[in-house]
Structures are given as C-alpha cells and as structure tokens.
C-alpha cells in the first residue's frame, strides 16, 4: 500500500469537513463536519504509525483523539440543546449576538 493512498483520502475527508463546517447552518450538521475533520486527522496518525514500522505511538494518539472527540461532541451537543431551548432554533447565523 502506498502511504499516499491513506493520506489523500484523509485530505479529501478533511476538505469535505471544512466545506461542511463553513456552509452548513444547522448546529448539529456543523458538529458532524467537525467529526469528519477529526477522523481525517486520525487516519493520518494511524497511517504514519504504520509507515514507521511497529511503532504504536500513532495508534495511541488516535485513541486519545477519539476520547477527546467524544468529549467534544458531548459538550457541543449540550450547547446546541441550550441554544435550542433559548431560541427555538439551532440555525447558527441567528446566534450572532457576540459578533460585535
């Protein structure tokens, strides 16, 4: 397997996630796009770990990233629920009170 097969696929996932995070209005969909970005980073970690032989450091970092992604989704969805409760909508352009 070429290393670039993994890396280019992960780059595609990253770009799709960036597009989603920029173009989506619904808060839950933005969080899903961020998950795509985190998974792209994880693929890179595991692929480079495999590239460097029997080094498990890449896999360990991927495990940490998965745990942090779980924490991020928990807090993010709690924030989205709070926004929904206060405004009856989770369209992020409506939540622009802090944009000065």
């Amino acid at each position, binding site marked *: 397997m070429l290393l670039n097969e993994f890396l280019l*696929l992960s780059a595609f996932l*990253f770009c799709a996630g960036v597009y989603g995070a920029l173009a989506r209005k619904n808060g839950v969909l933005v969080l899903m796009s961020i998950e795509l970005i985190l998974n792209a980073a994880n693929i890179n970690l595991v692929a480079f770990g495999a*590239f460097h032989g029997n080094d498990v450091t890449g896999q360990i970092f991927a495990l*940490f990233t*998965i745990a942090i992604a779980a924490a991020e989704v928990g807090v993010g969805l*709690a924030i989205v629920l709070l926004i929904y409760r206060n405004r009856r909508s989770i369209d992020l352009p409506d939540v622009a009170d802090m944009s000065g």
Partner: protein
Amino acid sequence: MHGFAHHSGLEVGSAAVPGFHPLAANLRYLPLHVAFGLLAAAMVIAAVGVVTTKNVVHAALYLVVVLAGVAGLYILAAAEFVAAVQVLVYIGAIVVLFLFGIMLTRAPIGRTADLDNDQRLPAVLVALALAGLLGTILVNAYGDKKVTPDQPVHTAPVSIALFQQFVIPFEVVSVLLLAALIGAVVLARRD
C-alpha cells in the same frame, strides 16, 4: 498508481523475501488495494453526502458509512484495536448522540432546503484550494513511500505503551472526560 508502485521497486515489502518474483509480490498486496478502493469509494460518496444532503437524519446515517470506512482503513493499516474502538465509540456512541441531538432539537425530519447558509460558494472555493494544496504537498512529499502492514499490531503492545509510556496523558484524558461529563450535565440541566 499500481503501475507506478510496480516500477518503483519493492524495496520495503518484498525485498526481505529473496527470490520472490516482483509481480507475485505485487499480487500479494492486490486484495489490500481492492479493499482500499471499495472503502475509499464508499467513504468519498458518503462524506459528500454528509455535507450536502438536505435531510438531517440522512446526514447522520451517511456519517455512519464514513466512520465504518475509517474503521476499515484502520484494519488495512494493521491497527486492530483502534478499529474496534472506532466502531464502539464513534458508531456506537457518537452517532447515537447525534441522533438524540437531532430529535431533541426537533430538527426538520425529512427534506428541507434550509440547512445551508449563504456562504456555499466561498466554502467550495476554500475546500477546493485546501484540496489542491494538500494534494500537491502530499504527492511531492510522499510520492512512492510504502506502508507494509504485513503483521497486525496486536492489542498487547498498544496497551503496554498506553499504561507505561503514556499513562499520564491517559489519566489526563480521563479527567477531561469527567470535566466534559459534568459540563454537559450543567449545560443541559433545566433549572
């Protein structure tokens, strides 16, 4: 891609096996390439689906396909334990959390045209520019480098590294999870 791999020699994969015909050595990795191609096609289609579909629930289901594909990639890269964790945590927990979020926010179940904001064109431009940049850099930097996942990395070395070399980050992550748990409860509490 495969022809290129064939011509650039098989310095890593089969050089260790003397007397192995290069074509046979290439054929040895053919199932991996086929599996990778199928996974990659499914993941590309599903990732585009996640960010373009007009239905919130469909986006969550497309996300399941992407995450399962990532688990498959981990197996191709010989990372069994990470693949299992990916299925358990992402597909088992995070997607369910997303579906709960969709239902609790009474998102429009079914087709709706109102999921994208008015920045779609700049977003496409940014994504394409990033794709071009990353693609160029990756092809130039790692053109013919090979990954040779001949042996799966078993769980034991992973756990030994996790609980010896990385035990302090491990504990920090557990504190982070606790903080996230308490934070989510405090945020979502009705009072």
